[in-house]
C-alpha cells in the first residue's frame, strides 16, 4: 500500500516536473542565459583586434556621449507618451467592450480589436507609409477635397511615429483592461451612482481604481513593447527618428561592436525597468497586485 502510494507520488512529481520543464528551459535558455551573456559581453573592452579586457569602458562611453543618452531619454519619453495615449484611447474602448456592449457584440468587438495583430509589424508600418506619404492616399484625398493646396508630407516626424506606435500597441492595453473591467460587477457602478456619484466621480473613484491592476499591467506591457520596438519608429520616423533600439542594431550590425551593443541592450533593460519601478511606486501598485492578477 505504502509502496503504491509512493509510486503515485513519484508519478505526480514527475508529471509536475515535465509540465514545468519547457517553461523552465525557455526562461533559462532564452531569457536568463542570454542576459547573463549580454552583461558579460558588455563588460569586455576591445583594446586591439581579437584582444579584449574586462572593464566598464562601454558604459563609460555611453555616459560620455550625449547622443546615446539623449536618444535613450528620448526613447523613454516618447514611449511614456505612447503609453499615456494608448491608455487614454484604450480605456474607453475597453470600457465599452466590457460594460456597455451587448453579450453578442462583445465577442465580435474583441475579435475586431485583435485582428490587427494578425498582420506583421512590417506590413502595418508599410500600410501607414502608403497612407501617409506625400504621394499617398491621405495627401491625394486632401488635395482632391481641396483642404490642401499641394502635396502634404505626413511621414517622417515624431507625431507620425507616435500615432503608428499607439496603433501597434493599443491592443496590449485593451486586452488586460477588458479582462479587468469584465470582472467588475455592474452593481458596483450602479452603487456608485446610487450613493450620489455623478459619472465623473464613479469613473474616478470606482471604475478606475477597480481597473488599476489592468491599467498598470497594460501600461507596463505597452511601455516595454514601445521602448523595445524597432521597425515602426525607423520606418515612420525617417531622417529624424532616433530610437534607442536602432542604436543597438547599429552597434551590433553596422559597427561590429557587440560589446557596446550589449552594454546598450543592458542599459535599455535597466532603464525601462527603472521607469516601471518608478511608475509602480507613484501609482502605489505592486507587480504582484497588478500583472499577476489581471
Amino acid at each position, binding site marked *: 500500500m505504502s509502496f503504491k502510494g509512493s509510486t503515485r507520488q513519484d508519478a505526480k512529481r514527475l508529471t509536475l516536473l515535465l509540465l514545468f520543464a519547457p517553461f523552465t528551459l525557455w526562461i533559462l535558455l532564452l531569457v536568463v542565459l542570454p542576459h547573463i*551573456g549580454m552583461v558579460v559581453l558588455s563588460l569586455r573592452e576591445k583594446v586591439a583586434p581579437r584582444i579584449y579586457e574586462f572593464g566598464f569602458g562601454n558604459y563609460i562611453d555611453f555616459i560620455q556621449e550625449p547622443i546615446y543618452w539623449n536618444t535613450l531619454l528620448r526613447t523613454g519619453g516618447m514611449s511614456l507618451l505612447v503609453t499615456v495615449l494608448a491608455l487614454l484611447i484604450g480605456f474607453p474602448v475597453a470600457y465599452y467592450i466590457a460594460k456597455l456592449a451587448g453579450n453578442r457584440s462583445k465577442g465580435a468587438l474583441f475579435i475586431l480589436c485583435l485582428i490587427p495583430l494578425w498582420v506583421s509589424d512590417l506590413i502595418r508600418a508599410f500600410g501607414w507609409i502608403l497612407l501617409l*506619404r506625400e504621394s499617398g492616399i491621405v495627401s491625394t484625398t486632401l488635395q482632391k477635397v481641396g483642404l490642401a493646396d499641394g502635396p502634404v508630407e505626413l511621414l517622417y516626424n515624431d507625431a507620425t511615429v507616435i500615432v503608428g506606435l499607439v496603433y501597434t500597441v493599443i491592443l496590449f492595453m485593451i486586452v488586460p483592461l477588458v479582462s479587468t473591467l469584465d470582472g467588475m460587477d455592474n452593481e458596483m457602478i450602479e452603487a456608485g451612482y446610487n450613493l450620489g456619484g455623478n459619472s465623473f466621480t464613479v469613473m474616478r473613484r470606482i471604475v478606475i481604481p477597480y481597473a488599476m491592476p489592468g491599467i498598470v499591467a497594460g501600461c507596463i506591457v505597452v511601455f516595454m513593447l514601445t521602448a523595445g520596438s524597432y521597425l515602426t519608429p525607423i520606418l515612420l520616423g525617417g531622417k529624424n527618428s532616433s530610437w534607442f533600439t536602432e542604436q543597438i542594431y*547599429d552597434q551590433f550590425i553596422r559597427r*561590429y561592436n*557587440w560589446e557596446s551593443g550589449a552594454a546598450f541592450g543592458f542599459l535599455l533593460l535597466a532603464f525601462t525597468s527603472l521607469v516601471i519601478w518608478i511608475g509602480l511606486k507613484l501609482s502605489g501598485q505592486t507587480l504582484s497586485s497588478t500583472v499577476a492578477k489581471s
Partner: protein
Amino acid sequence: MTMKTVLPTVLLGVGLTCSGASSAETLRLLTWGNYAPDNVIDMFEAANPDIDVEVTLSNNEEMIAKLRATGGSGFDLAQPSHDRIYAAQLEYELYKPLDLSKIDTSTMTPSLLTGVQENTTIDGEVYAVPHLWGTSGLMANKTEAPDLTGWGDLCDPKYKGKTSMRLTRTILLGTAFDMGEDPFAAYADLDEYQAILDKVADKLIACKENIKAYWQGGDDLSAMMLSGEIVASETWDSTAYKLYGENENIVFVPPATGALAWIDTFALPRKGKADEAAYKWINFVSQPEIVTLLSASSGAIAAVNGAMDLLPPDKKAAVNAAFTDDDVANLKFFANIPPGVEDMEGKTLEKIKAATGG
C-alpha cells in the same frame, strides 16, 4: 568560445540554416538580393544534379555579423564587398584562403582580379576573387534636376526637401571627396581621417534640412523617385538603371569627383563544408551566358572580360546613358577599411542621424 558562438546567435536571433550537415552536396550561399536568381540556380542544379543550392539574402554588414556569430560556419560561400574582407578577417577570422587553382581566373577582368587579390591577401594567402561590380553615385530626374553633377549638389537649397541619401559610409566618403579631401589616403592616419569625418558630419547635418528622408533599401528609394517625391538622390547604379527602364528621365549621374566603385567578391567562410561545390558555382556563374542573366537580375557588371558586351540591351543603354569613358577612368574603388574605421564612421553617422534638422 561558447559565449562567442552560442549566445550572440540567440541574442541576435540570427536565423541560421542549420540543415544539411550530413549532405556535403548542399551549397549554402550567403549573398545579395538578385545575385542568385532562380533561373541561374535551376541551371546550376541541372548541370550538377548532386548539389542543392540554398540562398540566404543579406548585405555586407549582416553577412559579417552572421559569420561572426557562428565563427564562420553555416555558409559555404559568401559574397562580401572587396573592402570588407581584410579587416574582418584580421579581427574575427571569418574566411579561409582560396585555392586559386580551382577557379578559372583566366576569364576574369585582370585589373579587377589583381585589385581584389591585392586587397584581400593576408600572409601570402588570397581570400577573395571578384564577381560583380558596380558603383555608387547619384541619380537625378533630368527634367527636375538637370544640373546635378556632384555629391554636394544633394545639399543644394534649390532641391530643398526633394533629395535623399542612404545614411552609410558611402555618403560620408562621397561628401569627403566633394569637399576636396581624399579619405582613402587618410586611412593611413586615423586622426586626419577623424578630422575629415568631422567636417563631413557638419556638412551633412547642415544638409539634413534638404533631405526628404534617408532611404533604407532599393524599394523605398525607387518609390520616392518614381512618385516624384524626390528629384535626386545618392544611389546604387543598379537601382538607377532599373528606374531608367521605367522612366527615361531618371539617369545615373557619376559624380564629378568620381563614382565610388565596389566589387562584390567570392569568399569561403572559414567553416564552410562544401568547398568543391562553391568552386563549381564560382566557375559556373562566370560563363558568358550566365553573366548576362546575372547582370539582368542584379544590374551589376560582371568582373569578366568583355562584361560590358554581355550586359542585356536595356542595361547597356542605361550604362551608356550614364558613363562616358572619362567617368569610367575616374572611378574610385573603395579602399580596404582598416580596423577601427568602421567604428569612427558609425559614430559620425549616429551623430548625423541624431542631429535635429528640418
